[in-house]
């Protein structure tokens, strides 16, 4: 351990919710100018920990020392800033104004000095050594990575001693996180100490200085990142050695004839792309964000119009114009990637979230449904998909991300349907749920279903898919299968695609 000075020291932090311990005598220390990763499964106590630091929850015991003084986050105003997973902005105001909210509007003769507002925005980006955005741009026009960086930049205005980043990359494709990490490194060089919560282990290597693992409300280990391994960390998080993702899978044996054939498909001027997928196959369509792989999945599902080309399902060409309802009747399913915007019905319970559309399960929109029978069926489905808590009456928004995703998955996976399209099936999901979802997907593939995984998560594609097609600008640039389908190969092929796309 280095002898560096601690900016933040936490001892014996304890939090109870009624009888159960959410945090059990947790110790934690943050050194000056370090990036300290905090990892653990959902429910490990990370968010309770952060909420106590933010003063949202009162702790039931323990001591927090910031910069040599014992503090109480609920009453003292502390020099700790937070960047959340989904930062809130005044979307219809400009970048400059959103920064000015934190720093204050510069004034001249009592009125707002607009040119100084803009200059201040540019200056703060430059201090971070990041190419500044046009301060007049509305926040609603920013891309996800631009917003993530803005969230960090605006907290700088407060000159915090400690910056807590709560999964800022969860909504970002891996390739877009690079800018964010650059900003974090720059902040570290300026002396800011950071606590970085993430579900993506691989991004911690080379970024974090130390890593702390929580499990079941307890501090398990703190170690230098340099000596840590991915498997070792997963073992700490799970409390057991991880099950190897590849090897014993029931892959490849159950292959059949082509269920899906896509011929010369162009969508909105992009493409063409042609490929086939067999029964029982998990095929990945991989690319960088905006690479056009999402559009291919959506077009097959009837959610995007096709410019030209043919989609053949089970030997029969599908009509060019067809609604999503028609596609469901043809046996196509699609799990949308953006869970909160396009998939989960927040405010509705698990039964409702599973039985949205009876036609997905081969039923009719006009048949009388008995709530008792639906509840009973939902209970079985919840068991099968291992959704926790096992309460079919709880609202979906009360569940953790992984359990929400399992519920949405349960909506689409049943004994009906031939082709399942999955967009980012495990985004914003902890490692335990990720493994569980992969197992469910493999089970359904082994049952003869064709799976099309649309993903920017290369690690996931390498672990889950039998074959992967790398897509750029709606076109196939390469294909990997069998022993060739490794993370390294995917990274090198898809980054080639990225350069290719830029040079066109």
């Amino acid at each position, binding site marked *: 351990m280095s002898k560096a000075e601690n900016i933040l020291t936490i001892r014996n932090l304890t939090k109870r919710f009624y009888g159960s311990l959410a945090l059990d005598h947790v110790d934690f220390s943050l050194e000056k100018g370090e990036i300290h990763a905090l990892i653990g499964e959902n429910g490990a106590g990370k968010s309770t920990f952060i909420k106590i630091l933010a003063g949202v929850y*009162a702790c039931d015991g323990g001591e927090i020392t910031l910069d040599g003084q014992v503090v109480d986050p609920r009453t003292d105003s502390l020099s700790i800033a937070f960047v959340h997973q989904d930062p809130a902005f005044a979307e219809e105001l400009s970048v400059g104004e959103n920064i000015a909210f934190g720093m204050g509007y510069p004034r001249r003769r009592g009125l707002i000095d607009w040119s100084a507002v803009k200059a201040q925005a540019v200056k703060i980006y430059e201090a971070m050594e990041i190419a500044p955005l046009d301060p007049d741009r509305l926040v609603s026009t920013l891309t996800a990575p631009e917003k993530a960086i803005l969230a960090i930049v605006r907290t700088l205005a407060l000159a915090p001693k400690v910056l807590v980043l709560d999964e800022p990359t969860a909504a970002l494709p891996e390739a877009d996180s690079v800018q964010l990490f650059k900003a974090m490194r720059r902040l570290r060089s300026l002396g800011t100490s950071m606590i970085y919560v993430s579900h993506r282990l691989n991004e911690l290597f080379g970024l974090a200085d130390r890593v702390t693992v929580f499990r079941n409300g307890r501090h398990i280990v703190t170690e230098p990142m340099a000596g840590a391994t991915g498997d070792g960390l997963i073992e700490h998080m799970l409390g057991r050695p991880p099950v190897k993702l590849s090897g014993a899978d029931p892959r490849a044996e159950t292959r059949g004839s082509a269920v899906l054939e896509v011929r010369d498909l162009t969508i909105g001027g992009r493409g063409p792309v042609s490929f086939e997928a067999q029964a029982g196959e998990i095929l990945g369509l991989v690319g960088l964000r905006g690479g056009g792989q999402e559009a291919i999945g959506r077009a097959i599902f009837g*959610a995007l119009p096709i410019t030209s080309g043919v989609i053949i399902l089970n030997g029969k060409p599908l009509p060019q114009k067809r609604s999503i*309802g028609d596609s469901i009747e043809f046996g196509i399913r699609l799990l949308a990637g953006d869970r909160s915007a396009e998939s989960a019905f927040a405010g509705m319970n698990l039964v409702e979230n599973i039985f949205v559309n009876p036609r997905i399960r081969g039923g009719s929109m006009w048949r009388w449904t008995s709530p008792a029978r639906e509840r009973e069926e939902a209970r079985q489905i919840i068991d099968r998909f291992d959704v926790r808590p096992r309460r079919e009456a709880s609202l979906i928004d009360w569940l953790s991300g992984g359990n929400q995703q399992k519920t949405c998955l349960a909506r689409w996976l049943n004994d009906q349907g031939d082709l399942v399209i999955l967009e980012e099936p495990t985004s914003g999901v902890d490692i335990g749920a990720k493994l569980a979802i992969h197992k469910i997907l493999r089970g359904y593939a082994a049952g003869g279903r064709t799976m099309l995984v649309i993903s920017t998560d290369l690690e996931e594609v390498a672990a889950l898919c039998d074959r992967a097609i790398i897509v750029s600008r709606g076109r196939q640039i390469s294909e990997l299968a069998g022993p060739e389908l490794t993370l390294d190969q995917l990274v090198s092929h898809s980054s080639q695609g990225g350069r290719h796309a830029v040079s066109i």
Partner: protein
Amino acid sequence: MSSQDIVEKRGTAAPQPKQRQVLVNFAANYGLAVIFVLVLIVFGLMRPDTYLSRSNIGNLLTSQSVTALLALAVMMPLTTGRFDLSVGYHVGLAQVLMVGLQANQQLPWVVSAIIVLAVGAAVGAINGFLVTRFKIDSFIATMGVGSLLYGLSNWYTQGMQISGLQLPAGYLSVAGDIFGIPFPAIIVLLVGIILWIVLERIPAGRSLYFIGFNPRAAELSGINVGRAVNAAFISSGLLCALAGIMLGAILRSGTPSVGPEYLLPAFAASLLGATSIRPGRVNVGGTLLSILILAFSFSGVQQLGAAFYVEYLFNGGILVVAVALSVYAAARRRKSAVHSSAH
């Protein structure tokens, strides 16, 4: 949030989580029913001779049937998250048309009723078309259509009352009694049962709620959002027409200025209804229960000698309190769920 946490931290005096959960759930689901019973008991004791008399109850049920149908009319588009502000003007038009077609055009009452229903469906379809096809915000579109309807009913009547002296007995019996129960109340009950079945037991009807909670997810689940929203507005139009047919028989005349005053109580009832039976969403049972509470508590206050303007204070107050209550209840339920799932 913060004061709540402090209260819970002290802990010892609070009931056990299980008990507490049951209590919270009961209050959330049946709070309105409890309030209704309390209202009946309190005013029944204060005015034992008049309040629970047959004639008072009969009058209340008859006069509130129109409000009840309009509250359901408002509720249907609200399930999808859309407003129908045209219901007040629409019931006015339906009422003058119903009386006018019989008095001026000498049409039989059943034919008049069919025409009024057809016009109602058409008005609903126009509202739906503006909202789904032209993507006009429902608030604006239905406000505009409402004013248009008001103009039409004043044009049709030239702003004057249509006398209902020659209205046939068959039509007037719509506002009569059957076995001592007001016929309008029976219609409301039947309509309520049908809507309840559609919204709670038939997947196609239930899809309206999915649209209300997350329209994009509903669309990607294969629900035809445009068609469902249109259907909600058409059913709203039909309910307004039915309310107008009933109102004409109750008033025994066609009065073009009648109608707009129904809008606020209709919204108040359906939003207050969203706090009970199926908390968090507008629903048939809650809406009808709210109508009863509003009517019976206002009648009680009236019998104690309150002035006419108290009605407006009442309806306005209820609307604000209803929305505040439902927001608070949602936060409360979320909190108790978070705590119990932390076990």
